[in-house]
């Protein structure tokens, strides 16, 4: 049959799981690379707002791919069904609200450094609680301090959410993170709004 093609063709974007590892490696050496993570924030939104689709999630998400590579290919996942509440609407939107609040707090801290009311802290915060020294990743640059402050904050956010994703990957299905990923919830919400419009 013509329309049942065999899945042999590999696309470049199927290897983006490598990017999610490279990202953390780069940020380990220079925190300014953390800014590149904005791509993973903006691209899915562009796809959703302009295209009305989740093509980013479906095909390009390096993090989702990484969970698949580790969870399925390298057998690091129990593959058990996750509890229902984890993919329920209230938890998904609750987690999105929490995540956006934390993002806002991070932007505010960046603003404090920008305005001179705060000083640059060369540390990352895991799970919004545990402070980890990270001073080797920054020793001044041509950019003002707030640029680095945002880097530390954003890197913390990315690392924390990846760790949460890894935990649920091990405990449950490979891509359990996807069910409550704030970007996934946001883009699906946008797509639903767009689909209802027409």
């Amino acid at each position, binding site marked *: 049959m013509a*329309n049942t093609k065999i899945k042999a063709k590999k696309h470049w974007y199927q290897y983006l799981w490598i990017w999610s590892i490279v990202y953390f490696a780069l940020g380990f050496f220079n925190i300014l690379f953390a800014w590149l993570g904005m791509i993973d924030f903006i691209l899915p939104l562009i796809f959703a707002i302009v*295209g009305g*689709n*989740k*093509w980013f999630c479906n095909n390009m998400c390096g993090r989702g791919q990484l969970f698949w590579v580790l969870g399925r290919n390298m057998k690091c996942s129990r593959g058990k069904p996750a509890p229902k509440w984890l*993919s329920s609407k209230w938890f998904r939107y609750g987690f999105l609200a929490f995540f956006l609040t934390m993002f806002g707090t991070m932007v505010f801290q960046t603003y404090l450094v920008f305005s001179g009311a705060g000083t640059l802290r060369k540390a990352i915060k895991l799970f919004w609680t545990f402070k980890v020294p990270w001073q080797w990743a920054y020793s001044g640059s041509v950019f003002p301090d707030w640029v680095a402050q945002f880097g530390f904050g954003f890197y913390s956010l990315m690392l924390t959410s990846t760790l949460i994703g890894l935990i649920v990957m091990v405990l*449950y299905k*490979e891509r359990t*993170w996807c069910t409550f990923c704030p970007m996934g919830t946001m883009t*699906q919400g946008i797509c639903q709004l767009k689909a209802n419009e027409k």
Partner: protein
Amino acid sequence: MVKKKANPDRSICVACGVCVLQCPRNALSIHKGCYAVVDNEKCVGCGLCAKACPANAINIVEKQEVANG
């Protein structure tokens, strides 16, 4: 004739697209970024999608097939 088919639940699907990647017959697609839909013509009910679905939104159900489509 009764045949096994994937049956994604639109109300709990998160449209992540894992099922689409798993389907060996390209029977699944994500409708407008909202939910997964299955093409019953192509689906053979193998269950690979259901096994991968992180939201447990896909069940394999037995569907009565009407003769000649």
